[in-house]
Structure formats: structure tokens, C-alpha cells
């Protein structure tokens, strides 16, 4: 069995709103080129992303909505006609063949699922996926189809699996959470910047699931300016306790890389350290609890030059048991991309230190986050005591 496969097809780059839109899948090219430059990604590791069938998309989406996306992408509908479906907005504009491109991203995640569940690879990565804001009948926040929701339903139907979904994107994983809010066999864990300031506004600790699913949604809303230590404290404690509590058959992680200081849309002030640590623990716990079954997808990440390639490269390196690199990035990569980048590239795997000025209320923010963590995990800790 292969350690891991890297799911990718050039067609995934067709998911493109415009040249100026913050969601830019050029980051896939930048990441792969970085990995190839350090001989960490071989052509034999790459498997093509299939296209999700309409039947598969229906696992998570309304037929009417799929029809709207198809027509919009073929120039058959105006922006005004689509707006109530979240399409044709500034966040999620219409682009050519948007249905086909979106179905390709979903298909990539399904390819990853099949590789892992059929035992052809221990782990699988589809960086093109992770579109966690997509709703059943509506696009939201750059996301048209929700590949993770489709993949989890597919995991349930085809493999009868109990799934833990872990979302470390700086934005709350609302679309996936609401899809499984009443389902006791899917647990969602989202760590994000508090919705008091940031899109989508949800992800409060009190969102714990409903009905049969009560107690299988976990949210960890962190304050702005959280920084690495507090972020990792929350991540490590919540992961361990939730794995132990839920005992999943398989884990699906969404690896948005937008909690970094450089990210233009968020305010958490993370550094590259968190992107070294996040995959390490996911990897370890997948082996401890799920016989290694770990599917990883991409997600947010809006500084595509300085943050995403390094962060996502680390994810693949961890997945394939390669030593996480330190020191300079390959000169060939820097030379190739610097002329195109609007900002000076970071020349090393680590961030410069200090990356930013000290945060004046650090101690208070950490204290507040720790309180939040205790409240969010109370439900599990309480049960343990009983």
C-alpha cells in the first residue's frame, strides 16, 4: 500500500473567478512546484482527480441549485437570476464552466476517499478541495459545491464509516457543520477566528448539534490576535479529547492556510509553526484511532505567495513521513516565482522572527481562549466524570 497519494488534475485550475479574486488556485501550482523542487513529490505519487457525477453532487446539493450552477456557467442566466443562489455576487461571481470546474474539485476529494477506503493508500490529499462554505442550495464565501459534505455522505453510504471532520481554516466550517448538525455519526470540529468579527459569523461554542446529533458538533472560536501558542493549545487539546470521545473510523481534515499573519482576510496572527504542527497531530491520531485512514483537503489561503505553498508543502511532507524541512527554500523556486509575485517571497521554510510587533493584550487573549476551550469541551469532560 502506498503511504499517500496526491490528487491533482490541471482541470482543477479551471475553478477561477477572476484575476483579482482572492481565491486563486494558482496556489496549487506553486505548492506542487515547491515540492518537486525538493524532490518530495514524484509523478508516481500523483493521481488524477475524477469528476463527481451528478448523482454524487446530489448527496449534498439540491437538483435545482445544480441546474442553476450549470446554466450560469454556460452563460444562460444573468447575475440577477442567480443572486438568490449566492452566485453572481462579489464573493462568488459567475465564471465559464463553473459547474464542471466545481464538480472536478468535488471529484478530487472523492478520488482521495476511494484511495484510502479501498486500501490503495494509507492517506490521500486533495488540495483543490476544502470548500466548506457551500450550502445545499446556495453558494457562499467562494464555495460553490461543498466537496467535504459530498465526501462525508459518500463515506457513509459506500463505506458505512463514522467520520470525524476537522476544520482548521480561519473561517468557521459552517456548510459542513450544518449538513451534519443532526447526524450522530459525523462529528465536526472547527477551530476558527470568532464570528464576532469574521465571516461567516457562526461557529459559537453553543453550536453543539441538534436532536440525535447533539454533542457531535464542536466549535472553538478564537479571538483576533490569538497567535501560535494559544492556537496550538486549543488544537492539541480539542483534537485529542474529541478523537477519544468520538472514536472515528476515518478522519477528514480541512487545511485552510489563512490563519497566518500575512493572510489579508483574517486576524489570528499565526506563523508557519502552526502549519508544521497541525498535520503532525492529525497524522498521529489517524494512526492511533483510524488505522491511518486520513483524507486531507485544502481550503482558504489568500496569501498564495508567502504562506500557502510552504504550509501545504508541509502537509504533504508530513503525510508521506518525510522530514519537515528547515532553512532556505530552493533557489530555483524563488527565482522562478519572484518575478511574478507582487510581494517579496519568504526565502526560508520558517518565517522571519519577529514577524510582527508584540501583541499588547497577549495574556488576556490567551486567558480568554483557554476559558473558551474549557467551555467548549465541558460536554465531553462532564460525561467522562459521570
Amino acid at each position: 500500500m502506498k503511504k499517500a497519494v496526491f490528487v491533482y488534475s490541471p482541470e482543477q485550475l479551471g475553478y477561477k473567478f477572476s484575476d483579482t479574486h482572492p481565491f486563486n488556485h494558482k496556489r496549487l501550482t506553486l505548492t506542487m512546484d515547491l515540492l518537486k523542487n525538493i524532490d518530495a513529490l514524484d509523478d508516481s505519487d500523483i493521481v488524477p482527480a475524477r469528476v463527481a457525477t451528478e448523482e454524487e453532487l446530489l448527496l449534498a446539493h439540491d437538483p435545482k441549485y445544480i441546474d442553476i450552477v450549470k446554466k450560469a456557467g454556460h452563460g444562460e442566466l444573468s447575475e440577477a437570476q442567480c443572486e438568490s443562489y449566492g452566485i453572481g455576487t462579489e464573493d462568488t461571481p459567475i465564471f465559464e464552466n463553473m459547474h464542471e470546474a466545481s464538480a472536478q474539485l468535488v471529484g478530487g476529494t472523492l478520488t482521495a476517499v476511494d484511495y484510502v477506503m479501498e486500501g490503495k493508500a494509507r492517506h490521500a490529499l486533495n488540495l483543490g478541495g476544502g470548500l466548506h462554505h457551500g450550502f445545499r442550495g446556495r453558494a457562499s464565501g467562494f464555495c460553490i459545491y461543498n466537496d467535504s459534505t459530498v465526501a462525508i455522505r459518500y463515506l457513509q453510504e459506500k463505506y458505512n464509516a463514522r467520520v470525524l471532520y476537522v476544520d482548521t481554516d480561519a473561517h468557521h466550517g459552517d456548510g459542513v457543520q450544518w449538513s451534519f448538525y443532526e447526524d450522530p455519526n459525523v462529528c465536526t470540529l472547527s477551530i476558527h477566528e470568532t464570528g464576532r468579527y469574521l465571516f461567516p459569523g457562526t461557529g459559537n461554542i453553543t453550536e453543539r448539534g441538534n436532536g440525535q446529533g447533539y454533542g457531535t458538533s464542536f466549535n472553538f472560536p478564537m479571538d483576533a490576535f490569538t497567535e501560535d501558542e494559544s492556537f496550538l493549545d486549543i488544537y492539541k487539546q480539542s483534537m485529542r479529547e474529541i478523537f477519544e470521545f468520538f472514536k472515528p473510523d476515518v478522519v477528514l481534515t480541512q487545511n485552510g492556510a489563512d490563519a497566518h499573519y500575512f493572510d489579508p482576510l483574517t486576524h489570528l496572527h499565526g506563523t508557519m509553526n502552526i502549519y508544521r504542527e497541525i498535520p503532525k497531530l492529525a497524522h498521529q491520531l489517524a494512526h492511533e484511532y483510524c488505522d491511518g485512514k486520513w483524507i486531507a483537503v485544502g481550503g482558504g489561503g489568500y496569501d498564495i505567495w508567502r504562506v500557502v505553498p510552504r504550509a501545504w508543502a508541509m502537509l504533504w511532507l508530513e503525510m508521506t513521513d518525510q522530514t519537515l524541512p528547515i532553512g532556505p527554500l530552493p533557489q530555483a523556486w524563488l527565482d522562478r516565482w519572484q518575478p511574478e509575485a507582487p510581494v517579496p517571497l519568504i526565502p526560508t521554510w520558517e518565517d522571519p522572527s519577529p514577524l510582527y510587533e508584540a501583541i499588547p493584550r497577549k495574556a488576556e487573549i490567551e486567558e480568554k481562549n483557554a476559558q473558551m476551550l474549557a467551555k467548549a469541551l465541558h460536554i465531553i469532560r462532564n460525561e467522562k466524570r459521570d
Partner: protein
Amino acid sequence: MIVEEIMNDAPYTLAPSNTVLEALKLMREKKVRHLPVVDEEQHVLGVITERDIKEVLPSSLQDEPNSPVFHAKVEDIMVKDPLIAHPLDFVEEVALTFYESKVGCLPIVSGGKLVGIVTTTDLLYTYIELTGATEPGSKIDIRVSDTPGILFEITKIFHQHHANVQSVLVYPDSENTQNKILSIRVKTLNPLVMIEDLRKEGFDVLWPNLPGVSL
């Protein structure tokens, strides 16, 4: 917003002849803390609260399961002639009554009969809804001068970007009384373009701050 829109229009009630034990059971079963006491024609005679009951009951630390207090009638311990409100009252008037009179509920009376009840909890929930945050959105805080037309200038920019404004809160600037702070929730993941335009028009955007700006 008027009271009618937020009130509970099917409140549980008691008759004056009900016992304290019955009142206690109803409160526990239905998870409510306030019960209007009405006659057969639904005229409000009084209100009984969880606290009124607790005050007359023996201490839970003492073992007095058969205390005669349980069998007392609610009319003996209820607040008679309580403050009431009308379905057409404004929610903010009711809020002021709660704040000034330190009561926890108001029976709503129309045509002399009980038609509903409003509690501080209902009011708090209404406030949460007013702040938005039930739909995907980003928050932007702007300091503006306290002059007519400013809100128009700002919403014009959101309009130009086809962005839906979900809620607007206006509150005084604690540093300068000539200013107001606008806290706006907009239905977008990417507020940067709008913030850029707000800044171009000379507005002081307080949140989100650019990286490196102190708290």
C-alpha cells in the same frame, strides 16, 4: 418593533385558588419562571414568580416535605395589580420598564384580558437578533462624524459592491462626542475591496485593522 411581535401569545396561567405546589410543578415542567394569575374571564389578577415561591418555601436544607406552605393559595403570595403592557407598545419602551422597575416579566393585556407575556429573556433574544450574525457576514466598524447623511454615504459604497448589509448598529464614540461608531455586518467573505473604498472616501475604518496595528 412592537411587543406583539416578540411576546409569547400562549402563556401558562394559574387561577387564584391554585396552590403553591401546583405553581411550582407548572414552573418546573414548563421551564418558566413567571406565571400570570387570571380569573375565568382572563382578567389579570396578579403575577407569581419563581422567586415569590422560593421566598415562602422552607429552606431546601431543612427536611420539611409536608410544610403547609405548599398548600397555600397563590393569591396569598402573588404580586397583585402587576405592571402590564399592551401589544402595541414599543419593544424599547418595555425594555426601559424592565430596566427601571426591575421586574422580570410583563403580562400583555388587551381589551382587559391577558393576551400574552414578555420576559427579559425574550427581550434579550430580540437584541441578539438585532445585532445580525445569523447569516454569513463580515463585521466592519467605522468612526464617523455625527452629521446627517453619513449613513447614506457609507451604504452607497456597499451598494456599489452589490453587498447586502445585514445589520447596522450605531453607538456613541467614547473618545469624542462629535463622533459615532457604526458597526455594520455585510454579507461577504471578502470585505477588503469595500474597506479600500471606504478609506478612499476618507472614512476611519476601525475594524478590521491592518496587520501590525495595535489593539
